[in-house]
């Protein structure tokens, strides 16, 4: 009985070892299979990258400056833009506008309602800060911190107004240009 149980135990141990060995072997094979797949994928990546390099070089060569310049001479004839084709800032853009001629259709205007919530109240507070010396409107100022900025803002205010006027005038002129073009078409 003793002998048999020992035998069974050692058979059990051996079979456990064999199973472990088999599993290890299987795992190793699997790992190596995945490794070679990864290697294959790497190889393909390298080949694709080489193809990309090849194509990039081909594109660069076909689109080199000499080829583009020859194509331009033959096909398009583009020239470097002259100074008159550049506009720097709104003033130059506005200078292109013409006053409306007699009988010209009225320019299209866009409605622009100022919201009472933020814009106008800020404007009002700015206006309130214009004369800090008299103190007449100082009570209307909600915050003391705004007071410290008042001197600077008062100086900026006419400029703001003139900018707003300019922008409105520009809008008008742009509208005029649009209309004139529409008439021509």
């Amino acid at each position, binding site marked *: 009985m003793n002998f048999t149980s020992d035998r069974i135990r050692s058979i059990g141990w051996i079979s456990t070892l064999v199973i472990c060995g088999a599993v290890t072997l299987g795992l190793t094979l699997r790992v190596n299979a995945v490794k070679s797949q990864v290697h294959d994928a*790497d190889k393909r990546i390298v080949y694709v990258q080489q193809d990309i390099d090849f194509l990039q070089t081909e594109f660069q060569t076909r689109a080199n400056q000499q080829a583009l310049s020859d194509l331009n001479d033959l096909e398009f004839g583009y020239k470097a833009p002259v100074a008159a084709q550049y506009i720097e800032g709104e003033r130059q853009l506005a200078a292109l506008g013409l006053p409306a001629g007699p009988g010209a259709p009225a320019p299209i205007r866009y409605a622009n309602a100022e919201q009472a919530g933020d814009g106008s109240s800020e404007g009002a507070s700015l206006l309130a800060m214009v004369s800090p010396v008299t103190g007449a409107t100082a009570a209307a100022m909600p915050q003391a911190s705004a007071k410290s900025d008042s001197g600077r803002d008062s100086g900026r205010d006419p400029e703001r107004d003139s900018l707003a006027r300019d922008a409105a005038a520009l809008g008008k002129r742009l509208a005029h240009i649009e209309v004139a073009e529409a008439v021509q078409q």
Partner: protein
Amino acid sequence: MNAHAFPLGAIPTTVSTGRRKLVNVRQRSLLVAKLRTLWILAVFALVGLLALGRITYLGFTGVTPSHGELGDMLIPDRGDIVDRNGVPLARDFRVYSLWFNPKAMSEGSALIHTPEQIAASLIRIFPDLDRDELLGKLRSGKPGYLRKSLLPEDANKVHALGEPALEFPLEATRFYPQGSMGAHVLGYVDSYGHGKVGMEQAFNDKLISPEGRTHPSVLSIDFRVQSALEDELARAMQLSQAKGAAGVVLDVDTGEILALASLPGFDPNHVKPNDMVVTPEQAAMGEVPHGFNRVTNQVYELGSAFKPITVASALDAGTITDLSRRWPAQPLHIGKFTIHDTHNYGASLNVLETLIHSSNIVTAQIADELGGVRLKKTMEALGMNERPYVELPARGFPIWPSGTWPRLRTMTVAYGHGIAVTPLHLASAYAALVNGGIWRPATLKKLDASEVPAGRRVFKASTSARIRQLLRMIVEYGTGRKADAPGFRVGGKTGSAEKPGVGGYRHHSLIATFAAAFPMDKPRYVVISMMDEPQGTAATSYQRTAAWNAAPVVARVVPRIGPLLGIMPDETRDIDISDLKPLIPAGSAEE
């Protein structure tokens, strides 16, 4: 089991000896079993420790995929060269070559078909192959190239011929996608893999170092500017039938070279033997090979383009304090030598008129007052007595009069004769003239803001401001009017010098130069254009001087490159010249 059941003291003495033996055996085998278990435990512990160690190692270092040779396949043998915006100008490129390997088949003849048949099939694929040469190679039985640089589709066609002896190995070659553009800057790589001529030679060690292979070398060149400059120089060269042309665009505040062109050029993809050498007969005729860099290697007497330097030196030294002062403009006799002007500009000229009309006589007098010592010092500060500062291997040494300059030498140097420098020297000097007076070495490497050299002060800032006005007025009213590009506020100076030949100056061989900077209200770039021996043609109104060939190049290049470099044309802006305008009487401007 029984031994465990009784305490040792209870065993009868009659059987004790026999039993004791048995007990000993038992204990020993138990000990052995324990020891074995310990061994196994130790082995397991060791394996476990190793596994744990490996896991910890991987956990700390992360799994680094060891690409090995695969990763190396993506790294070129020689690093790329790119322009300042990262556009590749030179890169490694793997191409197929057609290689004849007579040992491909171990038995029998090297070829399946006859050499004639193979030659005929190959010529069908590559019509430009020479039949006799090809047959000779196939019959010789020696391995060798039949052709280099095959397209993949052609390689497939060769493969379809079914000849094992025709192999097409993939080989790394150096390729320049932009063709001949910037050839003198880039140079080429010879068949041994050594860089030659340009930055390929200058950067050779860097390009093949592990760092240089993985990271491209960045040049200061902007390939769009380079292309525009080469285009316009080639056009002007054709129109004026000049022997050669050169040009450079330089950043005045950093010394970076944005474009450097020398024409005629060569194609670094297919360097021909006669691109790099000329026959002795051609050399005797004064011709240079196409691979010769006229901008950095050839020295020229650049003539009147030196006059603003002389005037700046005099303003700086305080020998000119009053710009309205007039000098006599009659031919000047110094010993046996007489200094002339090309035209008679009246009895006297002021400094402004001198520059506008480019008068040698008055410039010589200004230099005479300034003195040779101070003029020489200025020229030295501008680096005119040494090779130009640039990374290129080919840098010409100026023809520099050393020692004390006698009076006549001082006078001729003042208008650019008796001193010969490269166009790059002139570009660096003009940068110092207009940028507030700081001279910086030119470079072909892209510089970060922190890498810009401090340079050295050559002129006072006030002198530079005055020179900017004068240069702008030369273009607005003087000899440089053909260089004006509306809205770009170009300023500059012409220079037309006769080339020295055997037995004195050759009156019909000129070097015509225009040195310009723009925009003059805040100069950013210097543009130099130079024509070698331009002819008077219908396109140049039968004139040879710089105003008719080199100046129009600037007028055409600046509008092309200005917007690319962030300088927009604006006709409402210009440098303030109102204080100098009264100095030129109305109607006195050049016709």
